[in-house]
């Protein structure tokens, strides 16, 4: 078997890249060692947030994604028809709340910085915040509305992108692991080995989320992506009393921090399934998936502080996943400068669902030599902030 591009990983980022590449006319084979959309993509919340990102390249990426998802969601719905489940794209907006005096000013300052970078931002006083979210803790000290924040059903989104990739000609092989590199006499990567035989490839894209390090290692390369565990709670079905994605300002601290300790911040939102999702914790504990009640308790404490009525709500499910996290908190989207023929799209941490589409456009443009949607330089593996974390050339 041969392909222009072999994509390793059938999570949402691999699926989106496979779709973009196949629609650009390339032949694509997707290798997934487990089930499609079965790991990180199936264990998050489906965030498409601009509100949690400080001005910089990741925010630029998020703004592109925010502008692009309505088109992408409509395109997928159109292409896949009514029988395919909806990706449940909802531009419901986010409301970020400070509940302490100390937290109020940093939240306002953060929002003002974002506004300068092009984010739509609306400062809310307490009365306005309670008009947005009547059940919010009235003791709030500051609140900001971010109308661009949106939500997706992450598994349906990943499956839709993959189904669309198939329609564009991509082949998806699940239960098939990329075991190693096939190289030509000059040592250049020209394909991957699998148990089902070698697959020749003009390019190999590693899009295996937190397992990208392992996948790259099998090909003789390295990428400094690490797993970061996050837990989410799901309530029983209920009348919807949470209208936006609502979270406390500490969320910024957690996403931008490299501290290994358990951190939680409350992210509360309703879903079309009439449940409420409550996230989220962040722990660097490797691929340890054992349940820790203390983590769930911390998430619960923050959620109840935000929405006191939730104290009486039964939680029926808890799930956790591993997010792909880079030491400098920026995804990698582009070629591996040390290994010709090898490409990467990973490291989106908790933002991969929302950023998958724009990641695919950025990757595809670089690989096919067309005009990228935004400057790819900040997302290169060769960037200075990763230099200390990379192995050398072969």
């Amino acid at each position, binding site marked *: 078997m041969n392909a222009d591009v072999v994509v390793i990983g059938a999570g949402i980022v691999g699926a989106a890249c496979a779709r973009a590449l196949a629609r650009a006319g390339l032949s694509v084979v997707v290798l997934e060692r487990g089930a499609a959309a079965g790991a990180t993509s199936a264990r998050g919340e489906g965030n498409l947030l601009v509100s949690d990102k400080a001005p910089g390249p990741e925010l630029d990426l998020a703004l592109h994604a925010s502008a692009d998802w309505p088109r992408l969601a409509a395109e997928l719905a159109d292409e896949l028809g009514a029988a395919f489940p909806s990706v449940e794209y909802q531009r419901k907006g986010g409301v970020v709340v400070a509940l302490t005096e100390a937290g109020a000013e940093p939240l306002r300052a953060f929002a003002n910085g974002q506004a300068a970078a092009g984010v739509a931002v609306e400062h809310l006083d307490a009365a306005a915040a309670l008009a947005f979210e009547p059940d919010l803790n009235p003791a709030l000290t500051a609140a900001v509305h971010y109308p661009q924040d949106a939500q997706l059903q992450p598994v349906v989104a990943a499956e839709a992108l993959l189904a669309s990739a198939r329609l564009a000609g991509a082949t998806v092989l699940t239960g098939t692991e990329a075991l190693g590199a096939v190289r030509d006499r000059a040592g250049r990567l020209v394909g991957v080995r699998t148990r089902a035989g070698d697959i020749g490839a003009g390019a190999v894209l590693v899009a295996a989320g937190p397992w990208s390090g392992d996948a790259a290692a099998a090909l003789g390369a390295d990428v400094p992506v690490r797993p970061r565990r996050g837990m989410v709670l799901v309530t029983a079905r209920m009348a919807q009393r949470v209208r936006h994605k609502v979270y406390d300002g500490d969320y910024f601290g957690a996403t931008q921090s490299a501290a290994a300790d358990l951190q939680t911040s409350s992210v509360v939102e309703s879903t079309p399934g009439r449940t409420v999702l409550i996230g989220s914790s962040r722990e660097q504990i490797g691929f340890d998936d054992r349940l820790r009640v*203390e983590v769930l308790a911390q998430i619960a404490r923050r959620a109840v502080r935000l929405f006191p009525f939730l104290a009486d709500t039964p939680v029926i499910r808890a799930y956790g996943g591993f997010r792909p996290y880079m030491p400098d908190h920026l995804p990698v989207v582009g070629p591996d400068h040390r290994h010709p023929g090898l490409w990467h799209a990973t490291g989106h941490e908790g933002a991969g669902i929302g950023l998958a589409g724009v990641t695919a456009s950025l990757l595809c443009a670089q690989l096919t030599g067309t005009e990228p949607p935004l400057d790819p330089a900040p997302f290169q593996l060769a960037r200075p902030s990763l230099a200390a974390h990379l192995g050398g050339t072969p």
Partner: protein
Amino acid sequence: MSVSVLVIGAGPAGLSAAVAAADAGAMVTLLDAGDGLGGQYWRHLPPERSSVREARLHHGWPLFERLRERVAADEAITVLTEAQVWAVETTGAVTVRVLVGPADAAGREPLALAADAIVFATGAHDRTLPFPGWNLPGTFSAGAAQALAKGERIAVGRRAVVAGAGPFLLPVARSLTDAGAEVLGVYEAARPLHAAKGWLARPHRLLGAARKGPELAGYLGHHLRRRIPYRLGAAVVEARGEGRVEEAVIARLDADWAPVPGTERTVAVDAVCVSHGFTPRLELPIAAGCRTGPDRFVLVDADQRTSVPGVYAAGEITGIGGVDAALVEGRIAGHRAAGGDRSALRADLRRRRAADDVARRIEAAHGVRPGWRAWLRDDTVVCRCEEVPYGRLRDTAAATAQDSLRSLKLTTRAGLGICQARMCGRTVEELTGAAPASAADTSDQRPLAAPIRLGDLAGLATTPHGGKDTQ
């Protein structure tokens, strides 16, 4: 110092494990989520409304009374009822998280329990295959109908049919008639030849199963006296009615359980009680890390030890074997968990072999056969909590080319509702051919083993091995 043993579940297996562990010198804590002892098998009226008829209504009631009195009198056994285990932690010693208090009440008392040994005896719930109309009021799982009859003396209807597969149908029919219902028929999906093959192969082995033979004979005798028709190779393939069940459609089945066209007939009823076997309650042993086998039961060795050191399992979670198997497995597990000598168990090990034989016969005779899918329609609801119809489940699986359970659950919402796939999990797996990606990813896996109020979760005290044990 004596060994501490924590027994979870106070049905036949758990009660006998607790007593055996205390006999072997252990300090025992026995937990049950229900408000009394006995489990599903010996479900009975609450003490303030106790009845002298219990002995007549329950098989093995004197044995239950002995176990219950012993457990109450023995100072080495602490009993906690209304004790719901909602999580199991394995980051340090296996720790069981419990909420004690009336189900659904706020402010239940939280406990975190660990012990030298843990015995899981969490039992099984009955499995119901979906059929058109099964979500109409008036259809019940046979287990629910029996629980109401035994625990409340309430008959679910005046004119009922009982259908499904397995020897459980007979005691359900009896409980219903005892509670005052007229049972119009019992419809067993297994065909006569299948049933005979399962039950009659090497009949001398059946003599070894001390209780099961007479128990079934007793139910059949009751059946004959009451003139209740008992049909093999037949099923309720549809329930009909305006707003509630008014008619059951009965059809003959072929050997694969597919309805034979043209054999349908309708019976006027106000209750349909259905059971197609049992699903073990595996979430706690799975959360504790216990390995399960290809047949989806907890793997145990000759001492009822699971793959996790210090953790034992007994009763239906190790194989559907009925009360005799549960009692003997409980005794072995409790005795060994307490550090008791194996040589004392010779008779029990022999009894367990006989009980295992009965379990194999039941599965051979009454195990679910794939032809039942033929009675489904596109609009037959498969997942009742989330109202997912069969057609959508099948079409979504096809549209996503998906053969893994996790994605299918999340794209269809099947199994995501309040029962957390306890009712439909195995059915969804069979209908879609969806294989769990790993043993830890089955519909049996539920890290939250029971709902917990967010306020109760938020109120938990920080523990020594929570949160900060990062490496």
